[in-house]
C-alpha cells in the first residue's frame, strides 16, 4: 500500500489508534477532533491509517451490497394472535419475499427438530449410496409408484420435477416411520449425485423451512405443511439444495401464493 516502511509501521499507541478509528466513524467530540487533527497533521502514518480504514469500509460495502443477489422466497410461520386468526391467510410481499401466515404455531419449542427430519436424513444416508437397490419401484413405473405410495400414505402425492436443477427421478420406496408409512423419492443428476425427497405424516405445527447440516456435507431442508412433513436431503451445495427445497415446497405446498 505504501512503500515507505516508516509510514506503514504498526502504531503501537492504542489510544491513538482508537482515536483514528473514531475519527473515521465520526465518533469524536469536536474538542477531541480538534486535538487529534493537530497530531495527525505531522504524522504520515496516521494519515495512512485514516485512508486505509476508510478504504476498508468502502471495500466491505462493495463486497457485500445490500440486496445483492436474488432473494430466495421465505416462508415465515407465526403464532396466531397478532392480527387475523388462522385461515385468513394474508400475504405480505416485500423485497421479493413472501411472508405467509400459518395457523397453529404455538411457541416455546423454537428450533426443535421434528423426528421426521432426522428420519429423512438417516434414510438418505442409508439408501443414497445403494447402487442396485436405490429404489423399490423405478421411475419406469411412475404411475404405479404414485398410486401405490399415495394409497399407503393416504393422500394424493405428486412428484415435483427437479429437471431444471439437473436432477431426474430414479424412483421411490416405502419406509416405516413413527407416524406411519413414509415415502422416499430419489433423484439423481448426470454426475451421479443423489437427492431424496421424504414425505410422511407429521403432527408438527406448520412452520418455516429449516435446515440441518451434517459434518459430512449432507444437508436436509425440511418443513411441515398440511399435516405432512417434507424433507429434501442431499450432499449438493447448500445454496443449490436450498433453492431446490424452495421449488419442491412450492410445487407440493398446494398454496403457492404463500411462496411467490
Amino acid at each position, binding site marked *: 500500500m505504501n512503500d515507505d516502511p516508516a509510514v506503514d509501521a504498526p502504531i503501537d499507541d*492504542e489510544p491513538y489508534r482508537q482515536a483514528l478509528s473514531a475519527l473515521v466513524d465520526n465518533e469524536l467530540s469536536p474538542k477531541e477532533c480538534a486535538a487529534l487533527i493537530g497530531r495527525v497533521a505531522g504524522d504520515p502514518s496516521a494519515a495512512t491509517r485514516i485512508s*486505509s480504514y476508510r478504504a476498508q469500509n468502502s471495500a466491505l460495502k462493495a463486497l*457485500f451490497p445490500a440486496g445483492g443477489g436474488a432473494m430466495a422466497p421465505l416462508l415465515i*410461520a407465526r403464532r396466531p394472535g397478532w392480527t387475523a386468526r388462522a385461515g385468513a391467510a394474508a400475504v405480505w410481499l416485500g423485497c421479493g419475499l413472501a411472508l405467509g401466515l400459518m395457523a397453529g404455531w404455538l411457541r416455546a419449542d423454537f428450533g426443535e427438530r421434528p423426528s421426521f427430519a432426522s428420519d429423512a436424513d438417516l434414510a438418505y444416508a442409508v439408501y443414497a449410496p445403494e447402487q442396485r437397490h436405490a429404489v423399490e419401484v423405478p421411475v419406469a413405473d411412475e404411475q404405479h409408484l404414485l398410486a401405490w405410495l399415495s394409497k399407503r400414505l393416504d393422500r394424493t402425492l405428486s412428484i415435483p420435477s427437479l429437471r431444471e436443477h439437473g436432477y431426474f427421478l430414479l424412483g421411490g420406496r416405502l419406509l416405516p416411520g413413527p407416524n406411519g408409512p413414509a415415502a422416499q423419492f430419489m433423484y439423481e443428476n448426470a454426475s451421479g449425485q443423489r437427492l431424496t425427497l421424504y414425505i410422511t405424516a407429521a403432527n408438527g405445527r406448520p412452520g418455516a*423451512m429449516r435446515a440441518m447440516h*451434517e459434518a459430512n456435507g449432507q444437508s436436509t431442508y425440511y418443513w411441515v405443511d398440511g399435516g405432512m412433513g417434507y424433507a429434501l436431503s442431499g450432499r449438493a451445495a447448500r445454496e443449490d439444495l436450498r433453492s431446490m427445497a424452495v421449488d419442491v415446497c412450492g410445487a407440493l405446498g398446494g398454496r403457492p401464493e404463500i411462496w411467490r
Partner: protein
Amino acid sequence: MSFESEVVALLPVLRRYAHALTGNAAWADDLMQDTAERALNRRLKWRAGSNLKAWLLTMLRHLYIDQLRKQHDAGGHGSGMQWRDGEAPREQVDGLLLRDVQRALYRLPIDQREVLLLVGLEELSYQEAAAVLGIPRGTVMSRLSRARERMHSLMSEDGAGEPKQPVLKVVRSPR
C-alpha cells in the same frame, strides 16, 4: 409503517450482514429466515421507537453463535474459514483489491470481524454496536481498532494471500 413491513424492509440488511459474517450465502439465507421468524414471533418484546435494525442484528448474532456452537459440538467446521464463498471479484475499491479484503476479513478472529462489520459495513454507532454485542463501548473501540490495524497489516503484505513475513506481529489478548 407496520412492524412487519419494517422487518421486511430490513431483510436485505440482515442478509448482507449474515453473508459477511458467515462468508456463506446459503447459511446467510438460513440465518435471515430464522431471524425474521423470531422477530415476528417476538414482536411484543420490541420497544417501539428503539432501533429495530440493532434489535434484529442482535437476534441474528445470537442465532449465529448458537449455530456455530452446535456445528462445533458436532465436530464440524470450527473456524468459519471453510465457509467462505468462492473468490471475490478482482475489482478494486479505493486502491484495495476486494479479493484481498475478503481474505483478510476471514482471517480476523470472529469478535473482531463482527465489530468491524457492524461499524464499517452496517454503520452502527459505537453505542449501538456495543448494545448488539453486549459489551461496553470501550471494548467496541479497542476491538475495532485492532480489527482495522490487523486488516491494514494483512493487506500491506504482498498480495495479502501468502505473506512474506509471519502474519502475527504483536497480538495482545483482549482485555
